[in-house]
């Protein structure tokens, strides 16, 4: 390669025409503002429109240019271009189109911002996307996930009637959620995908008044009506995308969603829903308050979670309630909220008669055909 001093305005250049491997060695000069002229001894000059050139980046000691009209053409010029060439020729490609135009620093900041926004959008998608999914879709998705639980729910005519009555009080909507008592000794209640609410028989047995059950039922219905279930499905779905390939069969995840638990905010919303429905239906919230107090260990405690230690006596007695504590952050504060919702001195009618409450509690004993409900 010749490196002889060239007159001003002329650069040493070499190029390949992309047709043969023969190297062309000569000079390059600008012709006006529109073209680059490549000259080689004994050959006709080659006129290359500047608009036809694109940067191919840099080689070890040369800048590389390609032609749009002839993609195989390669021109190489010295690394340090004189100012007139530098302004006339396309900018050197380094990182890639966008980054080169913005500059590395700005591009990094811009990409970081866009990425952070994308991550935030993805992370919060369940929250804003969940409520937008039509309930009918959720029902179909939920049924596909949960399958048929019919055989594991307890049924007696009297028990079913009691359940329907209680449900009507806390879920006034035209299309009711499906609610039932699951044949399981666990002290728990869940809202499953597809608008299915289940009280476990263990919890029903623990209840001292029907108002306690109405409180729990109202809370679970609240999860369904506030679309927390759909949000949880979407969150699970997002997680499984992130853990791509961890292809957890759809059936397994239904209870995963229910057991994942909802956010503290969702729990508060579900409680608010329950209180509003109970107020509208004239159900005393004191039953639910008592229930939470028993969970929390005492009505004067502010923080139910610490109570296990202090009131170990109570805690041991109520150990059976641990299931509900695990999936629902129970605390004295929640109990207080229910207690405060009660109208002072008001005489609430009972939500169920004693017979109805008894029918509900004996439902699983009396149903001969019911299968054992095993969750996992």
């Amino acid at each position, binding site marked *: 390669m010749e490196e002889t001093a060239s007159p001003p305005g002329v650069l040493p250049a070499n190029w*390949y*025409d*992309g*047709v*043969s*491997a*023969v*190297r062309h060695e000569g000079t390059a000069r600008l012709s006006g503002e529109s073209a680059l002229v490549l000259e080689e001894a004994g050959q006709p000059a080659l006129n290359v429109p500047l608009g036809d050139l694109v940067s*191919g*980046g*840099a*080689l*070890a000691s040369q800048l*590389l240019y390609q032609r749009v009209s002839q993609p*195989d*053409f*390669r021109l190489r010029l010295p690394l340090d271009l004189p100012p007139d060439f530098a302004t006339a020729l396309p900018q050197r490609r*380094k*990182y*890639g189109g966008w*980054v080169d135009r913005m500059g*590395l620093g700005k*591009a*990094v900041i811009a*990409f*970081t911002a866009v*990425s952070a926004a*994308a*991550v935030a959008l993805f992370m919060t998608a369940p929250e804003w996307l969940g409520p937008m999914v039509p309930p009918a879709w959720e029902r179909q998705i939920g049924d596909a996930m949960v399958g048929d639980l019919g055989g594991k729910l307890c049924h007696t005519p009297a028990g079913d009637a009691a359940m329907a009555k209680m449900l009507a009080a806390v879920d006034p909507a035209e299309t009711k959620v499906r609610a039932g008592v699951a044949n399981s000794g666990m002290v728990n209640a869940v809202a499953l995908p597809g608008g299915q609410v289940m009280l476990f028989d263990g919890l029903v047995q623990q209840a001292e008044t029907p108002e306690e059950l109405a409180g729990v039922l109202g809370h679970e219905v609240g999860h369904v009506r506030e679309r927390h279930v759909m949000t949880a499905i979407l969150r699970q779905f997002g997680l499984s995308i992130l853990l791509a390939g961890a*292809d957890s*069969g759809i*059936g397994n995840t239904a209870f995963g969603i229910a057991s994942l638990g909802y956010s503290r905010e969702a729990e508060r919303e579900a409680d608010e829903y329950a209180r509003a429905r109970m107020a509208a239906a004239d159900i005393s919230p004191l039953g639910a308050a008592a229930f939470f107090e028993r969970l929390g260990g005492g009505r004067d405690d502010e923080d139910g979670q610490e109570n296990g230690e202090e009131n170990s006596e109570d805690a041991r007695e109520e150990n059976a309630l641990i299931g509900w504590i695990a999936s629902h952050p129970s605390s004295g504060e929640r109990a207080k909220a229910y207690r405060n919702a009660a109208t002072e001195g008001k005489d609430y009618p009972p939500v169920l008669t004693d017979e109805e409450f008894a029918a509900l509690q004996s439902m699983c004993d009396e149903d001969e055909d019911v299968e054992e409900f095993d969750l996992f």
Partner: protein
Amino acid sequence: MQDQPGADSAFQFEGTWQEFAPIAFTNLLLTIVTLGIYRFWATARERRYLWSRSRFVDENLEWAGTGKELLIGFALAAIVFLLPFFIISQVAQALVLRGQEALGGLLTLVSFLAIFYLAGVARFRALRYRLSRTRWRGIRGGSDTQGWQFGLSYMWKTFVGYLPLGLLVPWSMVSLWNERWSKMSFGPHQFTSEADQGPVFVRYLLFYLAPFLMFFGLTIGGAMFGGAFGMMSDGDVDPDAIGAGFIIGILLFVFGFYFVLGLIAVAFYAAFYREVVGAMRWNSVGFSFTASTKEWIMLLLGDVVLVVFTLGIGYIFLSYRHWKFFITHLEADGEIMLDELTQSTTATSKHGEGLLDAFDVGAI
């Protein structure tokens, strides 16, 4: 006009890691802040550097691939292969759940066969893509075929290779190498590859028999070590100590087993590449690959040390090390008639390797 490939080596690597470092680090930074999307541009940038610092005879190579085409290739691969595969596996699972085990199993088998086939096609395509984006003196390479046929060969030859207890694996590897390269060209000239499986097979037998030999050797050694350990601790034979010694012996055995097996695998690959590259010709140019087993081991140990002692950051230098290793050990001799060397007439794909380069293991 003629060029005689130099007396030293026709291939020279002129890069330095100091020059490569800013590229590697900015690539890493941009890849992180774009949540990985920059990866494609990073690959193109890295290759542009490595190719431009690789000299063949009197001119450096040029990488003409772009990040955009790699991204498009990836997207295409995802839509055309991954999505159907995902859907099929879901359908198969649903069928099994519904009690249609046979149908579900058949569907799964078919989708795995399809993946097997496409892996073969992908190996072919990756090489074709690399050649078509590699330029030397403005001339590029490529292939006139799409690799669909190669995919079939890949399937049956790999299958047959493993059939007689794996004894035909060297044959299938060499034969596939020959088949793949014989379909490639650079400029107007076809590559030929007539590698023989004989020399490779000897090394392979070593690899093949080693586990049995080692199993006997190390079992006896381990037992003796265990016994010795037990007796050493106390004049008498202490059963507990024998137990402890035996466990240590087993650990040494397992470690030694995999270490020796790894070494033999490297020895096999060293022999394999010497043979298959040495049997390649391009017009009147012959090639050879001079890396010895020891040099391969040093390369791999160097990789491990580099990655471990930089807590993983050194990973970004591995492509540099491997390319340098490849170029410095590649030799060529023969004559090149430059005026006969005209542009390749092969069709070029408009998109990059995409996901397919995940399957691509070897160098060019």
